[in-house]
């Protein structure tokens, strides 16, 4: 139970980075950390004590495996996270080219 709470604290650190920081790269890093916390939480939900990896073999009995469904969901989620990060970085590069800064408040000032 404590480990779920540590995972939520990691989530909160990512949230803090998104809400509080003014540098665009720091905001992207906050998004990545938030995604890591989500993935870790889903895999933690499927863990089972004395379980083994969900790959069949000839020798062992079949019923003592960890849950493969969260692993499948997270497997797609990791690659989607890379796509999200790349998209955010390309938008950030465009903003840097246009305004010459990564600071979001200066961008707001230049817009008006």
């Amino acid at each position, binding site marked *: 139970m404590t480990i779920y709470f540590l995972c939520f604290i990691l989530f909160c650190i990512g949230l803090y980075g998104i809400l509080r920081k003014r540098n665009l790269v720091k905001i992207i890093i906050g998004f990545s950390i938030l995604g890591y916390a989500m993935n870790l939480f889903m895999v933690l939900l499927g863990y089972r004590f004395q379980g083994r990896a969900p790959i069949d073999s000839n020798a062992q009995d079949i019923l003592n495996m960890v849950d493969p469904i969260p692993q499948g969901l997270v*497997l*797609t989620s*990791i690659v989607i996270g*890379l796509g999200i990060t*790349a998209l955010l970085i*390309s938008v950030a*590069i465009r903003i840097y080219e246009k305004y010459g800064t990564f600071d979001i408040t200066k961008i707001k000032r230049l817009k008006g």
Partner: protein
Amino acid sequence: MKDDSKIGMSLIVKTITRLIVGPILIFGAYIMLRGHLSPGGGFAGGVIIALSFVLLILAFGRDAKVSKVSINLASNLESIGALMFLCVALLGFLGGSFFLNILNKGVPFKLFSAGTIPLSNLSIGLKVGVGLFAIFLALVILEGTKKNK
């Protein structure tokens, strides 16, 4: 290519890269094709294949032969991967429903088994690898055009 030694990294890095790119590519294909027998699968294999091309561009500079491959070819190949996956899905209609595994299951623990799963792994690996490589190529070429101005 007179100034070949000027662009990119040093000679040692280039030689090691030339030696090591082939094994990385083969390892990516191995992980991709044995996805139904051992850990790995289309996603990891595709990213490893993309990483081998990324290594080439990083070592030889952005004017290497690989980056002459235009972005259009990369995104065309990516669309082909997506369409292949959709075709594997539509193949299930021959047996009755979407995503039905209609091919022969074969014997477990053999390479040619598990019906349509190796085909799906192949198409997903193609799609993920070429797509991520196209993303990296777009970022690199953007930087190149900005420096020309």
